[in-house]
């Protein structure tokens, strides 16, 4: 079997707040093949952005390994880490805060080219214009400052800067979440085109299941720092198996009143009646158990393993019954 482009093994990231330790990412493993798009979907606090930051070397993992193209990069720092910038790049949610407000777009785009590709003079200028053209921006954008551009245009510049060094992996952290619908579709098309033309791999992080479904080959659903379910994008979005994935899918509103009424009814079946206190009591057990309509004693006591239920499909749920594909049906499980 080929070596995956990125392998994340048992990644854990802890943050210390005063005397409390928060486990933001708790034993997450996944791989991304060359030219593959993996979508990480989850809500706030699921750890999806922290995983992205750990892959980028912006957050130090507490445990686990991150292997890029066969080389372990988990603890690489300094100049060794910086050379990786040519291979791993990032597009953040808000280009207004990731682009220097005092730099023109030309300067923002020139910087990586000068540093890593030693371009200068006319050659450098030409490459900047080529990049702008590649992401569908007119040449005059080169002289603009970030605040003189629209959100969609800024995000295009962010994409141009990310692909300037011809990386192999781009971490996209909610790249379209701050955009309006029409800019969102333009940006998604651009990312999709870059992925196809440059054979880029993406770690695509988003809270929006529809967006992740469109752009990803595979999806991992995160909750409380752990992976709940993985599978092909279509399988996860159209046929979720884990109770949390079901709740997530059924909570995402559909732009169709009749279909939405059905989805709302389906959601009621997977949701606990009383909201109550849904915080986790302990670090054992399934993180979703306090909110799960099907949780049993075993869910609160033991962490469920991520089990392969069909080729390429894994689910972490004690109560998953492979025959009925329904968590409720296992004998005596419901409390």
């Amino acid at each position, binding site marked *: 079997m080929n070596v995956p482009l990125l392998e994340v093994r048992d990644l854990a990231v802890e943050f210390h707040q005063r005397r409390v330790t928060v486990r933001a990412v708790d034993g997450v493993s996944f791989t991304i093949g060359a030219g593959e798009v993996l979508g990480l979907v989850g809500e706030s606090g699921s750890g999806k952005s922290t995983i992205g930051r750990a892959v980028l070397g912006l957050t130090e993992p507490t445990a686990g390994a991150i292997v890029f193209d066969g080389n372990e990069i988990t603890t690489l720092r300094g100049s060794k880490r910086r050379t990786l910038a040519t291979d791993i790049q990032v597009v953040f949610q808000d280009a207004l805060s990731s682009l220097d407000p005092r730099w023109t777009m030309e300067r923002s785009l020139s910087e990586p080219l000068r540093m890593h590709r030693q371009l200068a003079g006319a050659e450098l200028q030409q490459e900047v214009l080529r990049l702008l053209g590649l992401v569908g921006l007119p040449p005059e954008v080169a002289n603009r400052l970030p605040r003189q551009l629209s959100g969609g245009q800024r995000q295009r510049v962010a994409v141009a800067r990310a692909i300037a060094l011809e990386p192999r992996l781009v971490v996209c952290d909610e790249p379209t979440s701050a955009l309006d619908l029409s800019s969102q579709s333009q940006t998604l098309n651009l990312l999709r085109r870059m992925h196809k033309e440059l054979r880029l791999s993406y770690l695509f992080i988003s*809270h929006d299941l529809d967006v992740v479904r*469109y752009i990803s080959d595979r999806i991992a659903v995160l909750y409380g720092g752990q992976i709940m379910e993985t599978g092909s994008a279509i399988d996860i979005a159209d046929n979720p198996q884990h109770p949390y994935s079901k709740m997530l899918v*059924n909570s995402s509103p559909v*732009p169709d*009143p009749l279909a939405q009424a059905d989805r709302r009814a389906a959601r009621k079946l997977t949701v606990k009646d009383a909201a109550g206190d849904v915080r986790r009591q302990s670090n054992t057990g399934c993180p979703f158990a306090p909110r799960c309509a099907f949780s049993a004693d075993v869910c609160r006591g033991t962490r469920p393993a991520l089990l392969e239920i069909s080729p390429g499909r894994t689910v972490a749920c004690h109560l998953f019954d492979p025959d009925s594909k329904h968590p409720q049906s296992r004998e005596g499980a419901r409390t």
Partner: protein
Amino acid sequence: MISPVTMPGRAPDAAVADDRVRTGLLVVEGLTVAFPTPTGQPLVVLDNVSFAVGPGEAVALVGESGCGKTMTSRAVVGMLPEGGVISAGHVHFDGIDVTALSESQWSRVRGCEIAYVAQDPLVALDPCFSVRSLLVEALRRHGMKSRSAARVAAAELLARVGIPEPESVLGRFAHQLSGGMAQRVAIALALTGSPKLLIADEPTSALDVTVQAELLDLLRSLQRDTRMAVLFVSHDFGVVADFCSRAVVMYAGQVVEESPALELFRAPAHPYTERLLSATPHNASRDSELPTIEGMVPPPGLWPTGCHFAPRCPRAEAACTLGPIPLAAPTNGRSSRCIFALQELEAQR
């Protein structure tokens, strides 16, 4: 209830405000809002906006940012940003022209008869006061004399907005609440005056989808129980489909379409609505690019003279750019500011 005796009466040009004013709870007629500029030429940000919300109805105000949704909702509650003036048109609420109200008269409508919930609940929740103080203060301002009765009512309100342990939440401050919890408290605060109309400006946009779904359920049940009307400002067509029975679509300062929700999604009556709906990635084919709208919403001051959408519209012809396109009078509850759609709606008549 506002007494018509103590309030300014109907506008003299009440002829325009015909049936709609009598049957509608909120009737916006030809609302035009402008801001002064250094050149002296006022900058028009809302152009001839008309729509109505019936009693107990849930109506969406939908469009992208920069289309005038929030400006419209703020004009309706008399809270335009500094400098903004209503240069033409009227807003009738419960039969009264509220555009003519003085600030002191407004204070008896706003917060009581009309309540407002913003995207960020912290706008409504003063960080210096506990949830209990905020609710008790609001209840007393709305006529509940006894402090102890107000304290009981505050706990009841929290229970009504689905907060499981009201007593523990009453003692907290805004920063001690999660986003969803804070929005529930903001809704409870809005309910203190038993409003007839709730204006909800993107109330769930900052929340996770599972929390959003719970809040939409809450708003739905409150609306059903209290019969209050809701003007729901949103950019999310999924949320509109979930909550609203009718939708008003805005583009570049104008209403471009008004339709019952079912029809809006099945057969949009304006190319902007149609293009925007097709740009949603929901159920999009993964084998092709998403349909997009090229370019962006023109800012106020740069609107075309003809149809505002014409420069981005795939159907645009010379006739679209000749002069302003009127919003057609409703046919079967639908109206559109598109000459092609007008012909099609006319044909259905």
